[in-house]
């Protein structure tokens, strides 16, 4: 089923509202990091990925790995809205005894491909999946979503060199480039820029885009492989806390928890109430 861009934007707004609620309810952090990647998740799950919520273990499905595991609330809300499990379960997020932890655990819900939370693992896991596809003659694609801070990890660049050496054109690395890591500007903590050039220098076909422009995201992510014969990197420029004016580009929201009033304000801004 094809969705219009405005329908996708509307789904993204609903997911953002849910994520803000989840953070308030569970008093769980990383809200800003979750909000920055929602448009990427929606473009991937509603437009690009070949996945069927009724067949989450289908061997030929496309794989999506949230390598930036601290955006757990975003992937959980996305999977629930997509129909992998009942939305009610989201209310248990990060509460005692819930299967929904603050970083996603192994096989915690249908559709969750890999446990993450320690940065710099997801892309390598995804490359292993892509190699398996080649051995087993299955043509699925593998998408990994990384944070900009995650690109500090050397293992990301080990993975980048390996994927290029093997021309893994079914692998996509999307960097949620929200310009912040936990305690500082991601371009100041390490020399991250020029990030697109780095991926190109490592042998990838690299794109740079506004990570909140649904049209552009859909255009790029629905064109994999892109014909270059190379793995694809998407440097998605985003805003931490996107969608809620008083959270945008304010790194306090890496750890801050919204009050009840702030939840109401956020949902009003998102047009949900």
């Amino acid at each position, binding site marked *: 089923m094809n969705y219009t861009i405005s329908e996708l934007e509307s789904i993204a707004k609903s997911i953002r509202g849910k994520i803000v609620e989840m953070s308030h309810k569970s008093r769980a952090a990383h809200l800003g990091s979750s909000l920055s990647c929602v448009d990427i998740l929606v473009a991937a799950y509603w437009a690009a990925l070949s996945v069927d919520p009724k067949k989450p273990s289908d*061997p030929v499905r496309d794989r999506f790995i949230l390598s930036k595991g601290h955006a757990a609330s975003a992937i959980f809300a996305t999977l629930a809205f997509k129909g992998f499990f009942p939305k009610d379960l989201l209310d248990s997020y990060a509460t005692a005894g819930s299967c929904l932890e603050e970083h996603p*655990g*192994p*096989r915690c819900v249908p559709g969750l*491909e*890999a*446990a993450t*939370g*320690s940065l*710099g*693992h997801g892309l*390598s*896991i*995804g*490359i*292993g*999946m*892509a*190699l*398996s*596809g*080649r*051995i*087993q003659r299955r043509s699925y694609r593998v998408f990994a979503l990384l944070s900009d801070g995650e690109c500090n990890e*050397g*293992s990301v660049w*080990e*993975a980048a*060199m*390996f994927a290029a*050496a*093997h021309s893994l054109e079914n692998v996509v690395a999307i960097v949620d480039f929200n310009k912040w890591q936990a305690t500082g500007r991601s371009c100041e903590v390490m020399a991250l820029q020029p990030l697109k050039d780095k991926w190109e220098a490592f042998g990838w076909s690299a794109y740079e885009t506004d990570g909140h422009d649904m049209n552009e995201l859909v255009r790029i992510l629905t064109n994999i492989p892109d014909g270059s014969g190379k793995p694809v990197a998407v440097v998605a420029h985003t805003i931490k806390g996107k969608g809620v004016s008083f959270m945008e580009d304010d790194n306090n929201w890496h750890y801050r928890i919204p009050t009840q009033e702030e939840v109401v304000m956020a949902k009003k801004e998102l047009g949900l109430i």
Partner: protein
Amino acid sequence: MRNALAAEIVALAQEDSRTVLLSGDIGNRLFDGFKKRFPDRFFNCGVAEANMTSMAAGMAMCGLRPITYTITPFNTTRCLEQIRVDVCYHNLPVIIVGGGAGLSYAGLGGTHHACEDIALLRVLPNMNIVCPGDAVEVRLALRAALRNDSPVYLRLGKKNEPVVHKEDPPFEIGKGITVVKGTDVCLLSTGNLLPIAVDAASLLEEQGVSTQVVSFHTVKPLDTGLLTEAFETFQMVATVEEHSLLGGLGGSVAEWLSDQPRGKSRLCRFGTPDSFVHRSGDQENARKMVGLTPENICGEIIRVFNE
């Protein structure tokens, strides 16, 4: 041991199309046979062990049975977090093979020694630790590891070690193999020191101490049935390993023993000290330096036995 590994991987890959071999830019020519027959299932992953380990996890998630191989410290401590999170947390059937256990590569210096690997991997949930005693056990252990649905760390020596087993013994992960029968002392040997343990037992026999030797190839899960019987039967039980006295087989047995009712035997542990080896020389020389020789093991057991 590594030639036995290379030969057995070819046989197993023939039998099971899920078998995949990942090498960390090591084993020049060692895997030529595998590469020739299964070119699409061999990957030289370069000097990038973290990526290699996570890729193996991704492959196992898709139903394959990956085996990663490089020199022990680089396939264990270098990528410990990838083993912990991607392999063990997900409880995946990845086989991690470390070549060059203990002081196998003594001459290459401390960077290439591996006397802490059992201790570090043993504490990871879901992990099995298997240390074959000779080339025969390497083949059997690899076969058993591939049948296992959980992570296995396979700790190999180098090449051309003495072969202890004249024929294939029954082999099961978690079950020790009695190699020499005796009645007074029981030597539990894990990994590449098995020939040394057998020689030590001969020396002890000459001194009138009847000595049993067990290839205690699996450090985790511990063969507690065998341990219970050994501590009830023998006057002394000794662990023998080319690994630190901290946290290896000796450490595991001591932990287990402290939870048991007081038995009749005492435990004596042989292993490497809590220090790095700083002097050049081959494995035999290094073993002499740290006291892992048949003569030293025999002498120490006689001394404790006569206390």
